């Protein structure tokens, strides 16, 4: 095992993120990318400990204590990969060369279901045109004077 890699201390990104905890899930909204993510309990536990102080080895311990079952280091790396992909870390953490990247299926095959797999799922729902105030007809962008819809005329309608 690569001792150096396991002493890495990942740091979660905080700037530009809105975080809300809802019934066992952690919801994260990336304001910069306008993307929302839902972290299950295991992913939330790992992400919450990406504080720049807890090592990968420490996370394995934390998760083991939390679940009461043996935890494979792969679980942590799987979560960190997802965080990195979704821009939820300050900087990508380089995985040890001997720890190969596993798919979710491979991870389940390897560790079984003793610990729930950390999942980061994108939240997709239709956007709501919540403001009725923007419904102003226009011919040119200059016609759009309602604050929040100014200067945007699409198909003869002001848009935010």
């Amino acid at each position, binding site marked *: 095992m690569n001792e150096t890699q396991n002493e890495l201390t990942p740091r979660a990104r905080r700037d530009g993120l809105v975080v809300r905890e809802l019934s066992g899930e952690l919801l994260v909204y990336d304001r910069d990318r306008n993307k929302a993510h839902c972290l299950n309990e295991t992913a939330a536990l790992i992400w919450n400990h990406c504080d720049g102080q807890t090592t990968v080895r420490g996370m394995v311990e934390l998760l083991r204590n939390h679940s009461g079952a043996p935890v494979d280091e792969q679980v942590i790396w799987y979560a960190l990969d997802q965080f990195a992909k979704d821009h939820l870390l300050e900087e990508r953490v380089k995985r040890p060369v001997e720890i190969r990247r596993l798919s979710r299926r491979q991870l389940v095959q390897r560790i079984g279901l003793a610990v729930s797999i950390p999942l980061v799922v994108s939240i997709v729902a239709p956007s709501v045109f*919540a403001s009725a105030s923007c419904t102003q*007809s226009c011919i040119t962008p200059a016609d759009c004077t309602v604050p929040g819809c100014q200067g945007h005329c699409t198909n003869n*309608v002001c848009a935010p």
Partner: protein
Amino acid sequence: MCARRNSYRSVNNHKWPMAASKSKGKLVADLLYQSWRSHAPPPRINEDELGTITPLLLGSGAGALAWANIRDSKLGESSSAVELHQAYRLHALHTAAFEDDIKKLITLLRSVNVDPILIKGWAIARLYPDTALRPYGDVDLCVRPSEYAAAKKACESPEGQKYVVDLHDRFGRFDDLTVDELYDRSQIAKLGDVEVRVPCAEHHLRIMSSHMLRHGAWRPLWLCDIAVAIEARPADFDWDLCLGRSRQTRDWVACCVGLAHQLLGAEVDDTPVARKAKTLPGWLISNVMKQWETPYATSQPPVSHRAAMGSYLRGSYLRHPRGLFADLRRRWPNAIEATVYTGGPFNALPRWPFQIGECVARTAKFIARLPRALRDRI
């Protein structure tokens, strides 16, 4: 006055005219029935019906409220529930982001000595059991006319441009409420560590009522807001203040209270408008339910118009008169909006005179706005 009794009965026996097959609007009303309450009654629709209206709920911003209503029922296991749950999650995040924006925006405006009043949006969402149930897309702020220029400048600054603000310094011709009156009775609500000025409960119910009718009541969530405001009103709620001085305002508020009662089951028995609330004209209820069948901004005028009327006067459009006629049909006003626009009473009389009146007034306004040369050509 709204005198005619019709086949719509009070919520106690809750019978509806379309017993055989429920319209989509009726299904939306049934699902949202008392859904704002912490302990809402079990949903009154089945899984297939939920599937039918899920796009309407999601598209109109009522997805989270619907989710809260079904999550503990059998419907909570349905495939529609997955989508509604996603909406709830997304609204929860957007709400948290917007709350942060509101705090920053109000702090920004106070730094230029403007103390705005927040209307609708968070000001009403805070009355729901969970603010995530009530999404909002912009920040409606009311400021004194003397402070408007400073507020506008702050909102247009690089810092202010980060927020979607709808700034008001008056209520237009549809309400006789003045901004000074609004300030005199306004209250402070805490949003985290920031104090936010909000309208008193009486003024807020009145503002929301006129706003909903002015926009033709197409969004179910607006009526939920009114229902929440009615049921969360303080013990010393002053109905005279809420109903206002004019007959018209009283009529509007009473009709909205009545709609909240008849469609969503809001408790109104102990209000002075209870009698009217239970005897609304049939056209009003059916019109709102019809609107709820397409509760999207894109289905509402002017977004639903194919092109601005002025553009039909240009050469290329004149070659396509069918498009013009189709668009004229789309401009036939909704009965609610026409009644509001013409200042008519919400009674049992037919609506077409008000709709024609609204068309005539709008056409006159359109012609008056045309350049003189074009007017002469017409």
